[in-house]
């Protein structure tokens, strides 16, 4: 005789209930403003941060004037001036120069761009391999970068984007985060961490296959999608 497996009972939360529960949660305007300020400061938007400070009476956690040094480095990178950036960064925090994989990656890209092949190989061996040795994501980045030495001539070289201006912006973003972390101890904007917690929480609910609830898929709009079965 076959036994019929009993289905785990589902907990269904209707859209109305969900919205009702959400509206019961009180978020202070001051807390939201603090999150926005935190983001502006972390990402280096000094002028926007100053305006926001005036209009919302929200105090930044750090002196906005101290952002200047960080912004000078970022500006130099985005202007494709590596020498200037390194000089400024050396004055600000020499340790970051040693430990920043992405800064060295940009240096390697420039050596390759200038066709200094032998120097590029030696540089990759001395500087980049040790930094990537225990990080799979960085290993992947290094693979793509070294590959240009060989595949640059291909019509559809997938790593060619590393030669684009967008790569400079990515490098600047990584260095900005490194400087900000070294100065404040914070690892990126708090808003980013909250979003990650939201994603993790939704995944937990999904994995248990017990809850049916309005789900947020597009975080740029925050729209809730309800899909009852």
């Amino acid at each position, binding site marked *: 005789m076959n036994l019929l497996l009993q289905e785990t009972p589902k907990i269904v939360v209707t859209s109305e209930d969900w919205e009702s529960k959400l509206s019961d949660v009180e978020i202070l305007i001051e807390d939201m403003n603090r999150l926005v300020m935190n983001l502006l400061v972390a990402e280096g938007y000094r002028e926007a941060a100053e305006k926001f400070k005036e209009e919302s009476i929200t105090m930044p956690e750090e002196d906005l004037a101290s952002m200047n040094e960080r912004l000078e480095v970022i500006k130099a990178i985005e202007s494709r001036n590596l020498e200037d950036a390194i000089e400024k960064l050396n004055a600000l925090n020499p340790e970051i120069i040693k430990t920043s994989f992405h800064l060295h990656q940009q240096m390697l890209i420039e050596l390759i761009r200038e066709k200094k*092949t*032998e120097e590029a*190989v*030696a540089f*990759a*061996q001395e500087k*980049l*391999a040790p930094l*990537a*040795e*225990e990080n*799979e994501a960085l*290993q992947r980045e*290094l*693979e*793509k970068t*070294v*590959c240009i*030495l*060989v*595949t640059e*001539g*291909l019509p*559809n*070289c*997938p*790593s060619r984007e590393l030669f684009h201006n967008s790569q400079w912006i990515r490098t600047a973003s990584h260095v900005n985060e490194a400087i900000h972390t070294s100065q404040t101890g914070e690892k990126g904007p708090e808003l980013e961490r909250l979003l990650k917690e939201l994603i993790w929480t939704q995944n937990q609910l999904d994995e248990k296959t017990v809850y049916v609830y309005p789900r947020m898929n597009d975080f740029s709009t925050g729209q809730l999608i309800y899909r009852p079965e």
Partner: protein
Amino acid sequence: MEIDSATNGNSDTVMTESAATITPSPVVVSSSRSNQFTESLKLEHQLLRVPFEHYKKTIRTNHRSFEKEVSTIVNGVGELADSDWSKDDTVSRLTCLVTRLQGLKRKLEEGSNVENLQAQRCRARIDHLDSVDVENITEWNNTKLKRILVDYMLRMSYFETATKLSESSNIMDLVDIDIFREAKKVIDALKNREVASALTWCADNKTRLKKSKSKFEFQLRLQEFIELVRVDTAESYKKAIQYARKHLASWGTTHMKELQHVLATLAFKSTTECSKYKVLFELRQWDVLVDQFKQEFCKLYGMTMEPLLNIYLQAGLSALKTPYGLEEGCTKEDPLSQENFRKLALPLPFSKQHHSKLVCYISKELMDTENPPQVLPNGYVYSTKALKEMAEKNGGKITCPRTGLVCNYTELVKAYIS
């Protein structure tokens, strides 16, 4: 494979025993035997396919070199017609062209001889398959057994033994010694960490490999790149990059991720402790290439990946393998009662039996429709014959030999085997 190593260790014994097992005793061939034979012909695909592939390849190669030579000579004649050569120069050049034509003729004759030999081999195998009938099936199966053994020896690179057996059994046209010799050259070179002959083989079979989307040549090129990086000098890195630009870049279109992984060794070097790249420098990567070549080679010629001996043994032992056969005291007629066969059968699945076979505890005879099982009130089952005999001797009374229960013969219930 475990079977391979076990067989290597017990070659003589296993082959002797398998000879006794595989060769059927002479019997009248019924219609069911004809069907079995028809089924077994399906395993002879390799026998016909291999020499045919070889024949096609020979024709293709001969044709290609012929076209090339004729083209060169015709161009030579054209040049003479278009130029203002002196009479002596013209005569001299025409003499050269004539000499080349004579050389071409000789080459064509040699090529034709080879093609004829291979066509003859194809024909011999068709004749061999066509020749089996009721009267000679024993002899035919003996020949088949020898073919299977030679196939195994060739795959294990026992060329002299294979040749001796083939010659003494007069089956040279039914086995593929020269083809396996061709493979052996490449395999030996790879074991010696040389890729030249393997690359030549790839070039010779370029069209077929491309059609099957083989990436064996890519693997060879990657290994050669790795050997350059291993040297670990500024000069060798320079050569490695030049090599990669010439021989690896174009593979990036279809195998970019793998290409990037290997190229990163330029940064990590052969001394790296990072396991993701360290593995690429291990010498056993050459063993991987040997295995890959064997697979490509077998695929190209339409051969089975496993030796035929393995395939037949696995099929047979799997059909015979039962839990009872693995116990002590089972009948000696069962091959599984022998240690060597048990070892070979160890990783194989058990035979699938649709019906149980019940043996009477009292009489040791089989219980079937003529001697059906009967159930005592206590649930124990014995055969009808044994129970009837007991009842006749004891005034209609039955005494259960296992529990001692006494009951009347009339209380028994017939059981049915599903």
